[in-house]
Structures are given as C-alpha cells and as structure tokens.
C-alpha cells in the first residue's frame, strides 16, 4: 500500500514557534501546492487504483440494493429508456401530424439510440449527486479515498445501462437499423459520455455535500434538460443557426454522434449536410463537434476530480 505519506496540510513557520505555544498556535504558511499532474496521479493511482476492490464492492452494493426486493428486477434497467422512447414517439407523432407527414421508423430508431445515453446521464448524475451525503456514516467514521463514492455510483448506473444497451442492440434491427462499420464510433462516444458524466458527478457530489440544495437544483435541471438536449428531436429541425447553438450542449455531440453513426451510417470525420424544412441546407455534423465534445468531457473530468480532491479533506467536517 502506498499510503505512506505525511499528512501535512500546513507547515510550521519556524520563526513563530518561539511564542507561547500553549495558548496561541504558530502562524501557518501554506505548503507549496503540488503540481496538477501530481494530484491527478494521486487520485488515479493512490486512491482509485489502490482501492479498486472497494470501488468494485461499492458498485456491487449499489447494484444489489437496486435489484434486491424489487418487483421489476432487471426490467427496471429498460423501463426509463423505454418511457423516454415512448414519450419521444408521441412528440414526433404530433410533429409529423402537424407537418402533414408520416412518422418515420428511422426517427424512432434515432430516439432510441439517444434515449439510452440520456437515461444513463440522468440516472448517474441523480445517483452520484447524493452519493456523498447518503454515505454520511462512512464519511464521518472510516477513512478511504472519497473518490470511490461518485465513481462507484456512476459504475452502478453503467451496469444498468449496459443491460439496456444489450436489449437495444436486439431491438434496433426491428426498427430497420442495419449495423455498418460506423458503429465502431460507438465505444469511443460511450467513453466520452462516461468521462463527461463522471466529471459532472464528482463536481455535483462534492457541491451537494457543502450545499444541500444542490440536489434539488440538479433534479430540476435533469427534469427539464431533455428539452435542451437533442433526444426527442434533431438539432437540424432548428435551422442552420439553431442547430449550431444546439450543438453547444456538451451532450449534443455525443448523442447526435451516436444517432448518426448507428442509424445514419455517418463517419464522424466527415461533414453531413441535410436539407432543412425551409429548403436551406443545414449542417448536421461538423468534425470539430467531436473534438468539442471530447474536450469538454476531458476538462469536466479533470476539473471535477481536482476540485473533489481539493475539498476531500474537509468532507468529514461538513457531512
């Protein structure tokens, strides 16, 4: 175990040691901040890798609790995506009716592909935001790297979503989807989604410990987030400018990327333009969206992890 570190948060100022140490503490000077790289290494190696079995056990605990004494069993894992797809079909049906067209099977397939990652994001964030507060007894009584809590919450949700993914893989051909080579993009996009979700989860989990109303704010944002994220609709429906703005949502490149590669067989290194409702050409995909989505996800994870790590030492006092 590589825990042999001196837990020093402050270094004594040698000049002030002479004073009456009985009543007055010595003046403190902040110890030099370690490099960000050293801190990230500490999080990844000393905390998560060394405690990987704890991550596994806590994930197992969260998964077990969900399925124990549950009537739905594993059906629970596909309930939420199925509801989202159902709601989306309803919305799309109304849109098709208004514009006098027929609802297309590929539109439903596209929603199905995006419903699952959205359900993953909502589930993981909802779950991880409360992960520190709900494990309060552990935080205040036993030492272990606190990073394992949001990580295992996110992993437990990953398990749920994996079941949903397997089911979806079987259902998609029924909706007329044929798998082309572009599905090779899917694992990459999933990793980007996981990265973004984990970073957000760490940030919000940490914030919720200090400010207990974060949970409620997050709930509201997640409930209405689906209207600002292209799940039911495609950004191209908003015209050239609207589409570009819609793609700024960090989740948009991931969700649209998944739809385009799985349903439309589009290679994400190439530009895709469609004809919009008004007859104008609308750019649906630009290769830099990929870089944008990846970049935001990486920045989110790094900042989430560093902020979490910085405040980790006082968690027990605020929990």
């Amino acid at each position, binding site marked *: *175990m590589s*825990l*042999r570190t*001196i*837990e*020093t*948060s*402050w270094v*004594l100022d040698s000049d002030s040691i002479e004073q009456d*140490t*009985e*009543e*007055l*503490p*010595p*003046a*403190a000077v902040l110890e030099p901040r370690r490099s960000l790289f050293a801190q990230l290494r500490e999080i990844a190696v000393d905390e998560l890798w060394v*405690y990987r*079995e*704890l991550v*596994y*056990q*806590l994930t*197992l*605990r969260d998964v*077990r*609790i969900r399925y*124990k*004494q549950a009537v739905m069993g594993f059906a629970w894992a596909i309930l939420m995506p199925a509801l989202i797809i159902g709601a989306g079909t309803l919305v799309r049906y109304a849109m098709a009716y208004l514009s006098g067209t027929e609802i297309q099977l590929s539109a439903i397939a596209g929603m199905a592909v995006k419903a699952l990652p959205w359900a993953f994001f909502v589930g993981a964030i909802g779950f991880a935001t409360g992960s520190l507060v709900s494990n309060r*007894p*552990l*935080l*205040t*009584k*036993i*030492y*272990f790297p606190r990073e394992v809590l949001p990580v295992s919450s996110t992993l437990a949700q990953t398990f749920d979503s994996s079941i949903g993914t397997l089911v979806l893989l079987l259902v998609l051909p029924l909706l007329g989807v044929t798998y082309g080579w572009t599905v090779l993009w899917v694992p990459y996009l999933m990793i980007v989604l996981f990265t973004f979700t984990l970073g957000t989860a760490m940030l919000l989990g940490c914030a919720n410990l*200090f*400010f*207990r*109303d*974060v949970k409620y*704010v997050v709930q509201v944002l997640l409930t209405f987030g689906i209207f600002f994220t292209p799940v039911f609709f495609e950004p191209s429906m908003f015209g050239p400018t609207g589409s570009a703005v819609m793609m700024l949502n960090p989740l948009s490149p991931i969700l649209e990327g998944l739809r385009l590669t799985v349903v439309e067989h589009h290679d994400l290194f190439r530009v895709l333009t469609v004809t919009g409702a008004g007859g104008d050409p609308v750019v649906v995909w630009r290769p830099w969206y990929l870089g944008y989505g990846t970049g935001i996800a990486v920045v989110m994870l790094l900042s989430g992890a560093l902020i979490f790590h910085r405040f980790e*030492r*006082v968690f*027990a*006092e*605020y929990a």
Partner: protein
Amino acid sequence: MANASVEFNGVWKKFQRGELHDSLRDLLPAIARGLTRRRPPVSELKRDEFWAVRNVSFEVSPGETLGIIGPNGAGKSTILKLLTKILRPTLGDTYVPGRVGALIEVAAGFHPDLTGRENVYLQGAIMGMRQTEIAEKFDQIVEFAGLPQFIDTQVKRYSSGMNARLGFAIAAHLDPDVLIVDEVLAVGDYGFQKKAFGRIAEMALRSIPVVIVSHQLDRIAALCTKAILLDEGRVIKEGAPADCIATYIAGQETVNTEHEGPDAGLIRSLVLETPRSVETGGRLRARATGRGDGLSRNKLADRSVAFRVRELQGGNVLFQTGTGQYEILLPQAGEYEVALSLQMNVPAGLYALDSFVWDAEAMAISHWGPSLTIEVSDAVEFKGSVQMNPEIRLETQPGTDL
C-alpha cells in the same frame, strides 16, 4: 511498512460551533463577505470557532501502547479521527504509517439490505482488505462473531449485538500496521467482550503502534505502556498510565476538595513509602503529615485523620479507617505523621487511596486530603472480590505415585 511509529507533531485542530452554511442561498453572501474582508490566517480563530485539539504531540513506537484519557469533550475523539485520517489537522503534522486498523464504528459500512456474507466483503473492502484476504479469513471471521447460521441472513434482521459482533470480527481480522481502539470493548455480551478484549491484547502484542481511547481506566492501565491525559484539547500530563490516571481522577475530584477551612491543616500531604504497585496480599505503607495548630483540644478530640481504599473504576469504597477508630488523639502543637499500613487483599486492578479528615461531632468529612493511585497485580490469579491468603497443598499417602 511495519516498524514505523505513529507521530503527532504540534497538532492543532479547529472546529466551528453551530451550523456551517449549508445551502446555495448562503453561498453568495458568504463569497461577497470573503471578497470584501481580509481573510484571517488559519492560525487565528474566527467567530464561532474553537480549538478542539491544541498543540498535541506524541509518538507511539511499534510495540508501545498509548492510552488517551480525559473527560468528555477533551479532544479524544478528534485525535482518533486525526489518527484514522478522517480529519486533517489544521496545523501541525500527523504521521500514521500503513494500514490503520481502527476498532471504531466497526459496522459503519454495513448495508441493512445486504446479507452478512455480502457485508463482510463490503466492510472488509472499506477497511482496506483485499478480497482474497477476506475470502481466506472468512470462516474465522464468521466463527469469531459466532454467527455461522445467520451469515446468509440480511443484516437488517440482526440484533444490534450481532451487528456489532460481526463488525468487530471483521476489524479484528485485519492485519494492521497501526491499531486504534475506541471503547469497542462495550460490544456484545460479557462473553464476547472478554473475547474481544483478548483479541485486542493479542493484536497489541504484534509490535505495532497501538492507541487506545477509553473511559475504562482499568483497561488503560492493563493494556497501555504509556498514556496522555487530555483536557480542553491540551495534553496536561503524559507518562506512565497509572500516573495519568491518578492525575485524571484527582483532577475530577478537586471540585469537591476544600483547600481552605479550619481542618485543612490536618492533612498536608500523603506519600507512599512502598512502590505504588503491589501484589495481591502485599503490604502498602503510606504516611500522612499535618498540624493541629489553631484547633482547640476539644475539637481535636473529634477529628480523625482517615483513609479509604476504593476501586478507581466504579468508585466502590472497599475499606475505610482512621485515627479515631484507634482512639489516637491528634497533637495540638507541631507537625505529626500518621503512618498507615494496609494489606492489599484485593484482586488485580487500580485503586485509589484517599485521605480525609473526619469530624465525628458533625458526622461529616470536613476536609479532603490528597489521593493516591494504587496498582494491584495478582501473583496467582484468583476469582472473587477478596483475596483470602489461601494455602493449598496436595497431601498424599506415602507411596502414592505422582
């Protein structure tokens, strides 16, 4: 990792009284305040802040067992949390090497909906054990907890005693580099407590640093090689466990002691002439000195320099006697000495020898003199509350083959 010491160097820990700002609504005003005002250095106290631990330093080498004693609120729990790395010091360094085995809140990681078996793996992982290690020790853990038939039952169906026993059993099978014990001896029934105590003593022998926090002073005396006494976050005494315990007990009783009053001079000091630790049945000799100046002959006739022996833990008075019982009249002038000799026919443990002035007229204690702590050890173990100088020998017929 083994053979490293636990070290605290000038450790200070600050806490805040009352509520910490808890909602986002409070964040903005707090930030605004923070920006407009000078930020005080960490070493200064802000409003509502206090030092829970002040300048505490100690070192526990492998093989040593440190006992931490003190009244409630003295900072014992905070020090334990600093030792287990749950809290970080505000100032100063703490150095705790390797895997910390903490016999504190041993069932904190249990989830009620999981079975005993699942919880053993979970709690073990939280304490830093490898899965293979848990699997290896699984049967021993279950056996130790005495729960083989309930191990596949959900923990929410356990009694609190079963819960605590299973938690202790897991913690007790961790091979720690540092052992920290907090009052867990109050786990389970009498039988389990004995087993738990035995296990702690066994773990303490493994030449690792051990820290024990307890209100059970006799346990501290029995297990520890040294002790510190805390009060209001400060170390007010460090040294031999019996010394610290004596200071602690004396400190707690100074509240009742009247140092002034007409009878205060009757007992000025109390000293031991024999070593403080005696074997059961051994003699203890003490000497009290005082002066009878300023008291009339009549009054002195009613006064008695008295002694009593009581159990340190629990406070049962076992024996009490005084000059009055022997019709000794205290002299009116000059210093006198009252010599006391007692045969300590009591079981091993910690005892207090108190001195006081008894006023036979008022039928009350008129002055408390000093107290001493006595440590009794048994040469030959026995059961019961009184040692009766037994003589046991085997008598056989001539020619019996031994």
